[in-house]
């Protein structure tokens, strides 16, 4: 998936995470994370963000994440939404057959 513009998803409310994705032509994924649970879960949050982008085949991007204690599933959903918005794509696959 190729990012065309800046995509934003999520909020900075408790239990949520705000993801801002910016396109980048090279250099891979660069994550900048602000979190109130940085010491406990910082590495895990970055891991989920990176894995979600890898699943979507986003190879280059700046990620600005402001976490307020989001669960992994929330992080994943927010990253996906931001990526689709940044790619200006509406080809969501909401459900895949097992």
């Amino acid at each position, binding site marked *: 998936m190729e990012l065309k*513009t800046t995509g*934003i998803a999520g909020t900075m*409310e*408790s239990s949520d995470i705000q993801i801002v994705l910016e396109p980048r032509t090279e250099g891979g994924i660069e994550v900048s994370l*602000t979190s109130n649970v940085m010491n406990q879960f910082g590495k895990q949050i970055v891991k989920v963000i990176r894995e979600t982008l890898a699943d979507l085949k986003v190879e280059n991007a700046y990620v*600005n994440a402001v976490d307020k204690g989001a669960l992994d599933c929330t992080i994943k959903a927010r990253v996906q939404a931001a990526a689709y918005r940044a790619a200006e794509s509406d080809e969501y696959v909401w459900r895949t057959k097992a």
Partner: protein
Amino acid sequence: MDNYNVIAGVSFTGSRLAEYREFLHKRGLKDEGDCDYTVMILDEDYVPVACGSLSGSVMKQIAVDDTVEGAGLCAKVVSELQNEAARRGKSHLFLYTKPENKRMFTSMGFSVMAETDSVLMMENRRDGLKRFLDSIGKRGGKSACIVCNCNPMTKGHQYLMETAAANCDNLYIFVLSEDGGGDNFPPDVRYELVKGGTAHIKNAIVCHSDEYLISRSTFPAYFLKDTIDVELVRADLDLILFATRIAPALGITARYVGTEPYDAVTRRYNERMHEILPKYGIEVIEIPRKDNISASRVRALLKEGKFAEIKELVPENVYEYLSGNFAHDA
């Protein structure tokens, strides 16, 4: 958060606007009247408890009632504003706040660009400034810089650049990226004309200023006491940003500037430059304006279609552009 109501809009009018202003006033703030978008949060009885506005790429007039502090309403307001800005294609946002709010905004992903005793300037990209500076790159030897609008570039600008370039190894020329609109030339045109007009200066590095140099981003007067001169605080912030972040990263030790006989704001800015920059080891060198050429004179002549006179005032490439694009009646 369940019992709160959020209202948002392009611009409030009537009783809603009065309510917004009254709330700001109670928090010791003032509506500057130039907001593009406002968010207000009301409690279950429809009494305002938090608000914030967007003016271009600046978030302003963010206020939260004492009684609900700690409920995360400030973050909610900032989120709403950021989302709206994103819908408008603006992801790089700025805010000015009091130094004591540093921690709160840092926790929302903002980082400090410049700081004085009374005001803090922040951006929502953690490494925005660093990325900007990295993209320009530091060069060895003695570096100097010129910051200019060049609206459009004149022989006066060219003379200043040639003089500065002869006295250093690298000359960074920052062309302001802000779009003045109206009669002004767009930033990309001004930038290209400077590139063309300095092609013969081998050690010139022409750069966009992005939002990092003399940004006209409306400076919020609302939390400043009336006795503080807004233009002065804005100038100081810009110069401190330059002196503490930009100049050291690029190894700039001198800033060249043309004398300003006409514009009072620019003249005062130059005065502050002389006062502030030397404290940070940056020399300010003022070069007398060549033949009193001014870009505003060129714009005035352009309106009148006097191309013969324009030719005397601007470099060849600028003349070509102007006559090629504006001389349709000639």
